[in-house]
């Protein structure tokens, strides 16, 4: 469904993403992990049309979407969320989600229904009338998810929806994401909370210093010495194996 | 067509006028560079400083050049307090809020001046106002030569201060890296207020240099607002060198444009330059990419 080939993006002299490639098949949950500053968010932004890649190609559902603007990418059926949540602060949760819902309909009533339905799916029904700025972290993360879902995407790009949540909240949102997938939405997620990635993703890509260094099942990845080193530091693989 | 001598004189006039633009723009660009705010009250505060010069002269007979240190220091104090008490405290750090607050300050300043000083045109008559330095076709009025030279000297002094002193370095540090500045123990809010104060102090100096040849009314700050904005975007928002080069460029452009196209269209030139730079090269000549 999503094909990224040899994508590069540099800022100034710094290569944030360096010839990274990845594939996501329809119906999958795929994880993208990597240590701090690996370039994950930049890669996401490039896929979603927020940055124009310097080189490389992105295809979605068989169409080349390289260099398209975010709204065009969204129209193709792919939508992203943000690592730092960006709620529309001075409007209600319902109205927040409606902004997403309006992507598929111009009708206010329909958008409201859709928004409420989505809110129910992410467990926000009780918070529909709250202001965007009044939400807790967990609430914001859910809102981020709900708004994106309301555009009825085929592929969701989730950027660290679990960062900053406590274990209970994580467990809850993992459940929500599973259900979203069950409902037929493909998911690519950046995540640091490894338990979550492990329990959710079928496959995981590892990005380090802009380069894709590994790909495989979560279990295999956790054993991959290069990944362990990237995460835990030089010499870690040897130490841990011992 | 015009005599090359006249053109040369026009360039010299432009340079002289540019000196003041530089001073006004340096204050604006400093405030922008450090605080990342556009000080919409710049013109009004210049006007207040000009009234200060006028009243010092009228009531106590203080020559504007003698008044320079007094007015500059006073302007610094007012800028510092204004930032601490109003702008910094009430803007909640939002760009648009600051713009609106400085707009509010300018409305208050303009009408306050009208309230207390009246709407009349006030000038001061200093004995050296009519002195001229002849340079070919150019007759350079002594006060303008002095003002330009003083403006340059003040800018150089300010540059030196920024380069050498701890406070100057702290200002430059805060401009680019607030977090880092806090972590070495720089009081960032204090530096903001100091920077705003210095920006306004530049206006104080400019007022002293302007008054021997200019006039003051509650509206006279506006004459310099758009020019200062244009100078700053031309030079690059926040760029010290840019403001200096930009000020002289604007002075000369305006001068030559006025000579060739007529003064009225010369003014449109300022606005057009402003628009074109913002549209085509928002970083200006010397600005760093945002």
């Amino acid at each position, binding site marked *: 469904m999503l094909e990224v080939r040899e994508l590069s993006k540099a800022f100034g002299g710094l290569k944030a993403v360096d010839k990274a490639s990845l594939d996501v098949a329809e119906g999958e949950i795929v994880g993208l992990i990597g*240590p*701090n*500053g690996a370039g994950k968010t930049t890669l996401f932004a490039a896929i979603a049309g927020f940055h124009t890649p310097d080189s490389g190609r992105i295809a979605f559902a068989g169409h080349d979407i390289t260099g398209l603007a975010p709204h065009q990418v969204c129209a193709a059926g792919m939508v992203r969320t943000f690592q730092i949540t960006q709620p529309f602060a001075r409007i209600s949760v319902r109205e927040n989600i409606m902004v997403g819902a309006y992507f598929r309909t111009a009708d206010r009533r329909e958008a409201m229904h859709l928004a409420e339905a989505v809110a129910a799916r992410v467990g926000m029904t009780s918070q529909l009338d709250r202001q965007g*700025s*009044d*939400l*807790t*972290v967990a609430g*914001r993360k859910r809102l981020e998810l709900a708004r994106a879902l309301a555009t009825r995407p085929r592929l969701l790009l989730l950027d*660290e929806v*679990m*960062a*900053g*949540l*406590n*274990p209970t909240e*994580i467990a809850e949102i993992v459940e929500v994401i599973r259900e979203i997938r069950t409902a037929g939405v493909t998911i690519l997620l950046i995540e*640091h*909370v*490894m*338990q*979550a*990635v*492990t329990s959710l993703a079928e496959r995981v890509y590892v990005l380090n*210093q802009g380069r894709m260094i590994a790909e495989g099942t*979560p*279990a295999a*990845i*956790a054993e991959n010495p290069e*990944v*362990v080193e990237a*995460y*835990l*530091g*030089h*010499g*870690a693989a040897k*130490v*841990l194996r011992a | 067509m015009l005599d090359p001598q006249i053109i040369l004189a026009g360039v010299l006039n432009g340079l002289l006028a540019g000196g003041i633009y530089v001073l006004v723009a340096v204050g604006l660009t400093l405030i922008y560079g450090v605080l990342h705010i556009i000080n919409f009250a710049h013109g009004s505060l210049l006007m207040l400083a000009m009234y200060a010069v006028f009243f010092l002269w009228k009531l106590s007979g203080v020559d504007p050049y003698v008044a320079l240190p007094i007015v500059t220091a006073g302007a610094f104090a007012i800028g510092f307090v204004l930032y601490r008490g109003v702008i910094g405290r009430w803007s909640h750090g939002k760009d648009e809020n600051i713009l609106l607050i400085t707009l509010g300050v300018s409305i208050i300043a303009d009408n306050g001046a009208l309230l207390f000083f009246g709407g009349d045109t006030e000038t001061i008559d200093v004995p050296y106002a009519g002195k001229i330095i002849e340079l070919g076709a150019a007759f350079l009025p002594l006060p303008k030569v002095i003002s330009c030279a003083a403006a340059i000297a003040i800018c150089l002094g300010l540059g030196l201060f920024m380069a050498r002193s*701890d406070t100057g*370095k*702290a200002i*430059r*540090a805060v*401009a*680019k*890296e607030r*977090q*880092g*500045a*806090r*972590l*070495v*123990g*720089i*009081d960032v809010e204090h530096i903001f207020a100091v920077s705003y104060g210095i920006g306004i102090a530049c206006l104080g100096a400019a007022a002293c240099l302007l008054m021997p040849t200019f006039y003051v009314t509650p509206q006279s700050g506006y004459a310099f607002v758009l020019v200062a904005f244009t100078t700053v975007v031309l030079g690059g928002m926040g760029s010290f060198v840019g403001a200096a080069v930009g000020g002289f460029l604007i002075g000369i452009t305006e001068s030559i444009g006025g000579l060739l196209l007529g003064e009225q269209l010369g003014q449109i030139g300022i606005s057009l330059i402003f628009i074109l730079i913002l549209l085509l090269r928002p970083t200006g000549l010397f600005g760093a990419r945002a």
Partner: protein
Amino acid sequence: MLEVKGLRAGYGAIEILRGVDLAVGTGEIVALLGSNGAGKSTLNNNVCGLYRPFGGTVRFGGSDITGARSTRIVEAGLVQVPEGRRIFPTLSVRDNLELGSYRRGRSGRQKNLAHVVEIFPRLKERWTQPAGTLSGGEQQMLAIGRGLMGEPKLLILDEPSLGLSPLLVEEMFALIGRLNAGGLSILLVEQNVVQSLAIAHRAYVLEGGVVALSGPARELAEHPGLRKSYLGH
């Protein structure tokens, strides 16, 4: 020396730290570990006065500095070398270092400059260059050098190895060890778990805003929970 008790903190309505206890003794290196988003930087920022904590106390050198301004905290001798270095890009290397003694250690400026140059001879070569043009490793040296200029009693190093080549990472850890050997207390915030644990005396692992593991570094290195915290297994 540093004592954090029940610290709760976050941004706006968002609570990130949910009651953290942590201490650094005189002469110690303490490692603070945890994956991204665990709250390490939030802890740093609240300890150093960049943000005001929601609750809990922070004591340094015996006095309460909870919610104090960063100027006072630096003055007291608690200096942070932040993640991402946060050097002043338009200022020269020398000016960066001099500003390190803006609030504290001003009288010892010349002596300390010489000291820093001794530790990082590379900086001398770049003396008048704008700091923004330095390489990543050099910037990290500069950031640490700038921190040292303030004659800290406790130095917080936030991700000093981030973005450095493996060789430089080795060097960096060796250096941290040397600084500590010279008597400086250090709180080391790292994701480079193995090397951090190798030089630290004690360590804490943050997870979801609370301390998940803590203890002597050697013991933690063996702890199965550590690996799980990072890699999920």
